[in-house]
């Protein structure tokens, strides 16, 4: 069946370094791919999305890259800060707006 999954379950980085979180997906039919951040005890928070006909999109300190050839999605966070520590989920938006989420990567930022 369709699935969206992550390569690495945990990622530890030094404050100030750049972080890269990866995601693989299997269903190519979706129009959008989206990254969410979830802090402990809270619901997920939208970070950035990318349309399937794009290969790169930049936001504030974040960049999402989409490689449809190998069905790979990544989130790059520049100058990672302690407040970036959270679990990051990639998600695929399907018809009707429902999201199919990956398993999540826990990002830990060391001061």
């Amino acid at each position, binding site marked *: 069946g369709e699935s969206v999954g992550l390569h690495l379950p945990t990622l530890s980085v030094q404050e100030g370094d750049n972080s890269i979180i990866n995601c693989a997906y299997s269903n190519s039919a979706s129009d959008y791919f989206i990254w969410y951040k979830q802090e402990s005890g809270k619901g997920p928070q*939208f970070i950035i999305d990318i349309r399937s006909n794009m290969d790169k999109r930049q936001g504030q300190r974040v960049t999402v890259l989409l490689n449809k050839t190998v069905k790979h999605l990544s989130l790059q966070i520049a100058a990672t800060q302690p407040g970036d520590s959270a679990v990051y989920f990639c998600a695929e938006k399907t018809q009707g707006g429902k999201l199919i989420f990956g*398993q999540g990567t826990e990002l830990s930022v060391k001061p």
Partner: protein
Amino acid sequence: GAGVSQSPSNKVTEKGKDVELRCDPISGHTALYWYRQSLGQGLEFLIYFQGNSAPDKSGLPSDRFSAERTGGSVSTLTIQRTQQEDSAVYLCASSLAVTINEQFFGPGTRLTVL
């Protein structure tokens, strides 16, 4: 507050009991979604509403699960005859429309079935 709210925040119930979980979306949001998150897992889609209609119920695990939305606002997720495997955090989200990618999530209801 202007965010999505859910109640109760925690619910402990005994196996076999029925539970109702409530979601108050952001005012004016026509789309409402229910997801389930098991411990340490990703989010699993359950059902979504466009207005008061539920075009996609494909994620509901069994016929013990049902949901409704009234007045295009509040939604209730009902689980009948709860089982231990129903234990999870139930998250609700809303968006301006189904075509809008940004879904705003509530804090969730943690359900524990003993």
